[in-house]
Every structure is written in C-alpha cells, then in structure tokens.
C-alpha cells in the first residue's frame, strides 16, 4: 500500500483514551494513520499477527524500547530512533533486517499531528533500511502517566553467512575500527533539553547500519565482531567486548575521531565524548590483513569518511580496556557509574 499521509482522513487533534480502547476510535486511528503509512494491515485477514514465510538461514531476533526526551532533536526524532535502533541491533548480529513490530504507548492528549510525523519518520527509515513494519499495537495511558509517546520495536533478521560475529571471536592483533566520529547523538539530544541552555550545529548521527554491514559481508570482509555505540558510548561498548571475550583491548585516545563541535560541547560541559551516546556508530573488529580493505569499504560511504583505526586486541587475557592518552600514559577505561553529569564549576 502506498504511504501517503494525505490519504489520512482523521480529524482528531489529540489522542483520546478511547484511541487505545479497541473500539471505533482505535480502528479509525489504525486505518487513518498506521495502516496507510506503514503499508501493512495484518488484521485485514482477521489475524492478530503477521505471518512470515519460512526463512532459509539462522534468524536474529531483538527488541528495544524508546523513551527519548525530547521526542524531536536535531537530526531525528523518536520514530527514526525506534526503527534504526532495532535495525542496527540486528545488523550488529550480522543479520539482514527483515521485519519489525511496533508498539506505541501514547499519553492521552498527545498531538495527532506529531504522532503522524513520528510514524512517517518510522516508515521513511524502514524503507531506507529495507525492512517491513508488519505488526503493531497501540495503548493509550491517562494524561500524566506517560511522557507523550513511548515506542517499542522488535525485529527479525536473517543471517545469510557462516561467520561467527561475536565478542568471543576476536583475536589478538585484531584491528578495532570505528565507523565515524563519536558523540553526536548525545550532544544533539542534550542541546535540545531545556536544562542545557546551549546551541550547537551538531545533528544526531541516527542512521541505519544495515546496508553498511550487508555491504561489508557481501565484499567478503571476515568480520570478527560488531558492536554499536549507543547508551554509554564507545567506552561501554569496548568494556563489554573485553569482558565477554576476556581479552585486553588497547585504545589510542588520539586516534578516536571527534567532531570539533562535539569536542567543544564536551569541554564546556565537562563530559568525556567516549561516554556520549551514538545512534549510527559502531566498532568493527577484523584481522590485521583485512584492516585496509575494511576502512576502504567504509569510507566509500559518505557517512563514514571519518572511519578510523582506534586500537587493537592485545594478547593479554585480562578483560580490560586500556587507553593511551596524549601524554603516552595508559589508564583503564571503565563503564560509567550512573550518568555523566556536567561539572559544577
């Protein structure tokens, strides 16, 4: 079905409790917004779920919930995030994303116009990532019991190769490559929050990684491990990989790409970009003889011009991440305890 918001004949301005109540209003919402935009309608066959043909290969299955505040930020909104986040989780398993489910929890009184905008963004991203939104659910909660809108998406992808892409597969000497400069999503979201009165030209890096990973696989890169750099940033991803693989990762602080504006914002706020969230960033581990090829493939994509080697897997088996700073001193990189907070003075 063609996605066309103009086909929506829906004159409600705000979401009412009844839009989640299973009655006529809910069906109006489905038929005027969700079905035409997502181009799918599992209930037209009288079914409560989408029927998926048997797939030839291993399947990856993931779920994530999205509660971002604010709902709109430079470079995206909660809808873009909800599709790309789950698509990227599948891509990080080395899977080609196929199908998504979407669950909306909407607060009573939420603007229908904004809901349409969010749903349209979701569909755009889904088309971009070549994934279908095939089933969903809507609930409406009393005013004051939600924060506008929460979205959950689950995704199924197919693994069409025999590689074992996982932290346990990394080897001493492997290069650690990051696909882009880090920290843009976190800074974009922070700049939009009322409590941080600063402006920046930084936009969220929110984007789909599916085509990138599929391309690397297609061109024969023997990927050892992939990990996206979402909450907790680059640092948390690396620490997680070190802990699971029981191998030491050695990182050069100088090699980590950081955009000047992100760097400036972090300096002003007193936070470290290595802990700041990304929504299009990932690390890839490959053998040394595949490093150049991997970088070359990544850099053919305009989004990944800043891809860089940031370190390597050491032969020490001590599950730590060490980072060498500009003065040449190594220190331990750890996950954060709680949130990063701006400095007081």
């Amino acid at each position, binding site marked *: 079905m063609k996605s066309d918001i103009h086909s929506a004949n829906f004159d409600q301005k705000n979401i009412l409790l009844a839009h989640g109540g299973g009655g006529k209003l809910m069906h109006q919402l489905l038929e005027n917004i969700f079905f035409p935009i997502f181009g799918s309608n599992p209930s037209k066959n009288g079914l409560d779920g989408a029927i998926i043909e048997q797939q030839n290969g291993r399947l990856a299955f993931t779920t994530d919930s999205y509660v971002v505040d604010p709902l709109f930020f430079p470079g995206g909104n909660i809808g873009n995030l909800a599709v790309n986040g789950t698509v990227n989780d599948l891509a990080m398993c080395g899977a080609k994303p196929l199908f998504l489910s979407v669950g909306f929890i909407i607060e009573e009184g939420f603007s229908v116009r904004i809901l349409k905008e969010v749903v349209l963004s979701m569909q755009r991203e889904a088309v971009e990532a070549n994934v279908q939104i095939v089933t969903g659910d809507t609930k409406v909660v009393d005013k004051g019991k939600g924060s506008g809108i929460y979205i959950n998406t689950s995704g199924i992808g197919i693994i069409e190769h025999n590689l074992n892409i996982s932290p346990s597969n990394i080897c001493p000497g492997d290069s650690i490559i990051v696909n882009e400069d880090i920290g843009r999503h976190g800074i974009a979201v922070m700049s939009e929050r*009322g*409590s*941080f*009165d600063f402006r920046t030209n930084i936009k969220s890096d929110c984007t789909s990684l599916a085509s990138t990973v599929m391309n690397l696989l297609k061109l024969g890169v023997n990927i050892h491990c992939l990990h996206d750099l979402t909450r907790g940033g680059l640092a948390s991803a690396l620490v997680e990989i070190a802990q699971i693989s029981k191998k*030491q990762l050695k990182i050069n602080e100088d090699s980590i790409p950081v955009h*000047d504006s992100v*760097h*400036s914002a972090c*300096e002003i706020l*007193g936070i470290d970009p290595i802990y700041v969230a990304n929504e299009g960033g990932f690390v890839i581990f490959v053998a040394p003889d595949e490093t150049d090829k991997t970088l070359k493939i990544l850099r053919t994509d305009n989004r990944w011009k800043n891809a860089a080697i940031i370190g390597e897997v050491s032969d020490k088996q*001590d599950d*730590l991440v*060490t980072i060498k*700073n*500009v*003065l*040449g*001193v*190594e*220190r*331990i990189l*750890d996950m954060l*305890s*709680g*949130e*990063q*907070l*701006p*400095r*007081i*003075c």
Partner: protein
Amino acid sequence: MKFVDEFRDMDVARQYFDQIARITTRPWTIMEICGGQTHAIVKNGIDQLLSNNITLLHGPGCPVCVTPVESIDKAIEIASRENVIFCSFGDMLRIPGTSKNLMIVKAEGGDIRVVYSPLDSLKIAKQNPDKEIVFFAIGFETTAPANALTVQRAKLQGLANFSMLTSMVLVPPAIETILASPGCTVDGFLAAGHVCTIMGYKEYENISKTYNVPIVVTGFEPLDILQGIHMTITQLEAGKGEVSNQYSRAVKREGNQTARNLMNEVFSIINRKWRGLGEIPESGLVLSDSFAEFDAEKRFDLKDVEVEESIECIGALILRGEKKPPDCPAFGTRCNPEQPLGATMVSTEGACAAYYQYRKHDSNVLKKPGE
C-alpha cells in the same frame, strides 16, 4: 580544538617533565586545590610521570565533597515536602545524607529537578507559581556569582515562591586551615584557576607571606598543571614563598570585579562547617540581611542539627591531604560509586571517584611510557 589542544601537546609536556626533574633537588609535596585539577592529574597520569621525589596531594576543592552532611539532610527535609520543587546540580543527588540521599527522595515522590544553571530554577519558579521552588546553592567562589545573580533577579522579579538553601564555601580559609594543621606536609599549592578567575589572588598573598609557601594560580589542562608544578618547584628550590599566576589567560590579580561586587551585595561571610575539615572561621557565604527573605532555612524553619559522619569513610583525611584514596580499606570494595560511603566517591570531582574511575585495576596496566 583551539585553546584546548595547545595545552595537551605531548612534546611540550615531555619538556616540562624533563625540566621539572632537572630543577628538583629534594622531595617536595604539592597540593592541588581543585577537584577538576585532581581529575586532570589522575586521568592524564601526570603524577605517575613526575619524578619520584614530587608528591601531589589532592586538596579540598571538590564542591560536592565538602558540603557537610547537615546540609544534605536539610536538602532532603525540604525536598521531601509536599508542594516543593527542589532544584539541584546533578552530583548532589547521590551524596549520602544521614539516612538517605536525594535520589531516594526523588524515587519516593519528591519533585527534584536537576538543573545546569541556578537561573533555570527561576524559570521553574515562574512556571509553577503555586509551588515553592528551592535551589540548592553549593560550591566555591566559582559558582557563587551565578547564585548571587539568581537571588538578585528573584528579588527584582518579585518571585516570592523562590528560595535558596545555601552551603557555599570560600577557598582561602581552607588553605589556611590546612597550613595551620600540625600534620601539614604541604610545601606548595596549586590554587584553583576558576576560583581565582572570580576572586583574583590578592587574598592569597597574605597566606603565602605568613606561611612562606608558594601558591601558584593554575589552570586545568595538562600543560597548565605541569607549568604550575614547575613554577611551584622553582620557588621552593629558591626558598621563595610567593603567589604567582600560571593561569594568566583567565585570571587577573583583582579578579572579576563585577562578579565580586554582586557577591558582596547578596552574600555575607559566616563561619561554616566543611565536610572533613570541620568548622572554619569566615569560610562560608550566606544570604545577607537584605536578601534574607530568600533563605530557604528561614522559610522552612529548619533547625540546626549536628550529625556524625560515617566512621569507615576516610574522606576527611583525603580532603585534608593526609591520605590518598587507595589508603582506605573500603576503597573499591565496600565503597564504590554505586554504593558510596562518602562524598569523595560520588562527585565527578571527588578524589576517590577519580582513582576509582582511572586506577581501580592498579599497577599491572599502569606504567610509564617506554617501560
């Protein structure tokens, strides 16, 4: 990045390390005052790269760490009340009070908002005319002008639903207390650049003279700190005890006169209890009589209470520079940022938090370059 990268240049840093080693003929102990400097030192491994006869001690300059338990308990009492929106810097939420912290109050239903600037609490006050808005004003001379401006604006705008719980402190009396303590081993100080940006450094000249101790106003980047150490040792080796200014790109001798005038108008100086250091004469700021109507302690009729601090936490000794975080038997075991025994483990500027974040796994991976 301009104005930052220049101060992190490795080649220049190496030259400083070499020069410092060359001019140092005997052991010296230098205390950096500010928690931001402590973090820069530990994060960049500056203490590890210095020659062994230079000891860096971490001073009391973490605003969150020196806020006494009594103030935290008062904050908890106010924040727990119905009809109050309590505004605070994020760091304060996890500091343990006597029985709980502000994070727990928030989970119990207290309306606690994390703000980045005290002025944000005025916006909240305007948006919520039927609520009492209280800002938790902690910190040193650096944050005091913004707090002063906030109260001044509240008065101008007639915001009767706004008040401030103050626990602000001044650095020079703390330096004097450390110097006057019989156990003091500090030979020289790196004064906090940001504090001096506001206050200048005239006040330090008397201290320096009285105790014949070098005090070098120092910035926060690795090269700032190295130059500050170099300037301190140069004085020590020459037997001098003077105030000098490394952070001249931001600090003038007389400081920021506008900010100081504002502070003088809004605040009076009182004796203040510091966590770890006890009561220090004339070391705190409180709202002056003409702004007393904005004093949250008066508005909520809070009583003064005395509270015993945790017996196990050695934060007091750390804030006085008598111990380092790894000296504590609870460090990294019973005390960690998730379950802190004391404030020095909580704050992003606390010495224990710095050691925990950067050094917790200790010596096997921490080595000097080239080893």
